[in-house]
């Protein structure tokens, strides 16, 4: 296997909680990301999934150094991003880009589309008007818009189109790595598919590497090669998508998967869902030991005391759970995984018996 393109090692992002205004002092920290490590291979997509407040977006921003990481190391294509000084970082930025969740606020409302998409080029030194215009037109067509659209303003576009503009801007500097921060969460279902298909075809055409952040497990499965499940600032499970989706072993991944409603009524109505009790603890005061132990049905004494490490339960499948290999509880967990996957499989067998026009927007247009 080739070398990882992006390597994240022990990334920590703690935000200080301060009290007092003029003479403030730190009274604590929100551990938004706490000791997270993973790799992304070239041309692959890593799906980072978790619920709100789990630190997935923060992880993406820390990797791009939109936040200054508290600790840890991020290496992209051999360059240690976390070690770059301001000047070097600015020079490196073209190689790593971001597509934002809220396409409305991430586009300056006062700038025309031409200005928005050409801004990265201008910053990086292109001055020739003709060249800029040609590049903007090319990018707009690449993302499925028309060159004429460059004269318009963001508010004249629908949500899906604005997201395409955001993608065009991210692509303008020919990046190799793109963090997609919930790029489809705010879009309608029919538009989500358009954007995801676009991202996939761009990946194939341009050889991009993605970190795809989402809360929708099924969309993550659809787009990812590898999946990382995050809970309260830590990775619960990490591995190849087929491994995780055919054998979800972390109790949190299990409840997440079980909670996704499946659009097949006869299966969905009979499903035995695993309901989590209680709420997510505050990241300012995460529970000791395994952060999930307060809601985990399998939690034992050890889980309350000791932080579990990622263990490779099968090739390309890591789980951070003490109980998975426990001689008595382990089999129960594995059995539950089988049960969940069974239910989901039943659903996929009885899907709609007809396919819509398979508009494969591959490179053959």
């Amino acid at each position, binding site marked *: 296997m080739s070398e990882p393109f992006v390597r994240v090692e022990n990334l920590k992002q703690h935000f200080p909680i301060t009290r007092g205004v003029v003479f403030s002092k730190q009274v604590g920290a929100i551990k938004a990301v706490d000791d997270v490590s993973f790799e992304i291979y070239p041309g692959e997509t890593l799906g980072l999934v978790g619920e709100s407040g789990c630190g997935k977006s923060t992880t993406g921003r820390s990797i791009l150094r939109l936040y200054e990481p508290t600790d840890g190391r991020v290496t992209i294509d051999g360059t240690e991003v976390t070690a770059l000084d301001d000047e070097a970082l600015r020079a490196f930025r073209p190689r790593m880009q971001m597509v934002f969740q809220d396409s409305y606020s991430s586009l300056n409302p006062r700038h025309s589309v031409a200005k928005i998409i050409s801004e990265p080029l201008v910053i990086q030194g292109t001055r020739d008007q003709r060249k800029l215009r040609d590049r903007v037109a090319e990018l707009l067509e690449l993302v499925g818009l028309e060159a004429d659209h460059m004269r318009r303003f963001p508010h004249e576009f629908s949500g899906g189109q604005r997201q395409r503009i955001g993608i065009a801007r991210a692509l303008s500097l020919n990046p190799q790595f793109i963090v997609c921060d919930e790029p489809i969460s705010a879009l309608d279902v029919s538009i989500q598919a358009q954007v995801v298909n676009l991202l996939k075809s761009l990946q194939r055409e341009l050889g991009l590497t993605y970190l795809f952040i989402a809360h929708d497990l099924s969309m993550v499965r659809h787009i990812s090669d590898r999946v990382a499940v995050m809970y309260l600032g830590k990775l619960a499970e990490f591995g190849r998508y087929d491994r995780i989706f055919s054998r979800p072993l972390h109790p949190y991944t299990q409840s997440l998967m079980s909670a996704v409603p499946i659009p097949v009524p006869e299966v969905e*109505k009979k499903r035995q869902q695993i309901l989590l009790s209680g709420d997510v603890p505050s990241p300012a005061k995460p529970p000791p030991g395994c952060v999930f132990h307060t809601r985990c049905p399998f939690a034992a004494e050890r889980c309350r005391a000791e932080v579990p490490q990622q263990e490779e339960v099968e090739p390309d499948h890591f789980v951070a759970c003490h109980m998975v290999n426990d001689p008595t509880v382990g089999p129960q967990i594995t059995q539950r995984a089988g049960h969940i996957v069974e239910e989901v499989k039943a659903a996929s067998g009885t899907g709609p018996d*007809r396919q819509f*026009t398979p508009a494969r927007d591959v490179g053959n247009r």
Partner: protein
Amino acid sequence: MEPVLDVRDLAVQFETVEGTLHAVNGVSFRLRRGETLGIVGESGSGKSVSMMSLLRLIPEPPGKIHRGRALFYDAAETVDLLSLSNRRIGFLRGNRIGYIFQDPMSSLNPLLTVGIQIRESIERHTRLSGTQAKQRAIELLELVGIPSAAQRYGNYPHQFSGGMRQRVMIAIAISCDPAILIADEPTTALDVTVQAQILALVRRLTQELGISVIWISHDLGVIASLADRVLVMYGGTVVERGDVEELFTSPRHPYTVGLLGALPKLQGGEEQLVNIRGTPPSLFSSPTQCPFEPRCPWAFARCKTERPPEFFAGTGRVYLGGTESASTTQDTAESPEQEADEPFVAHRAACFHDLDRDQERDPSEPPAPAQGADKAAEAAGIGAPPSARGSASTDPPPAHTDSRQPSRLTGDRTGAEEL
């Protein structure tokens, strides 16, 4: 089964600086006692506006209920919600008809304890007061699964998590034993594990209390898990309706088909998600054609000139007569004898193109789709397009071939035609 709500030909418009916005265009449906009716649609489909206008919650002006009737068969009397006085509709709201909004935070007053807010609703609509009302409020909190309800009674909304707040909203909505509960995407802002908790709660409550529920959602999975029947809305109209199992397993409207195909799955494979090309419809143009036509791969000439009425699905298409609007169709479908059950269970789709035509067409029927569309159907693996088997009379005359068709089918990377 007896209906508890009968909505006929509801149309709602908004006057804006840009012109008249046709938010809802002739929506008709019935809600049976004790059933859960799911309404699926994307933003701008008119699903929330139509429900809010039933309780007259839309701001007037700029909004205006243009036409329609909404008969509410309450225990004591039958009233038309759309023509009631403001005072009487105010009495029904939160009393006989409960409403849950999407955002639990902004629907609760941050300055009052949740207990007081539940009590307020109870005291306004029932004879209970004082300690009795408090007792009832605590019972309700217990009913919606809030642990140590008696203590939580005195807490403020900000002390609750999003899921707990939504439980409080449900408690308020059911506090007066409503006949109908309208839930407007109450789980959209919640995480998926919290959503699962709320869905389980609602399922339990509807069984225990026998409330009729209208559940609005854009999430087909949520609808699958709760609803008995479904309305699919698009561009201010109902494009398909039917029993939830049937509608999900054999959708008849191209939009529903596309919507189901656009969803990724948790198991099994799909290499590519189905693209519904184009953008949601503009509601400014007056509704004289099929709202889905610009995005539909099966669209043909007639779809542009006429709004398709609802056709029964299943055993070939039966055209019910009347071409003005869907509502006309429904009215004609209801002879008094039929009225009993058929309008509820029938699976109908508002589309001229018969997706499962295995019978000869009625001669008065519209021509078969243009060639481009047939290619699309072929490409989709639907089997031989009907026109290939049809008689000469059903073959599309060349005039119907839409010259835009081929480009639309291939130009799928764009999403920008309808700016």
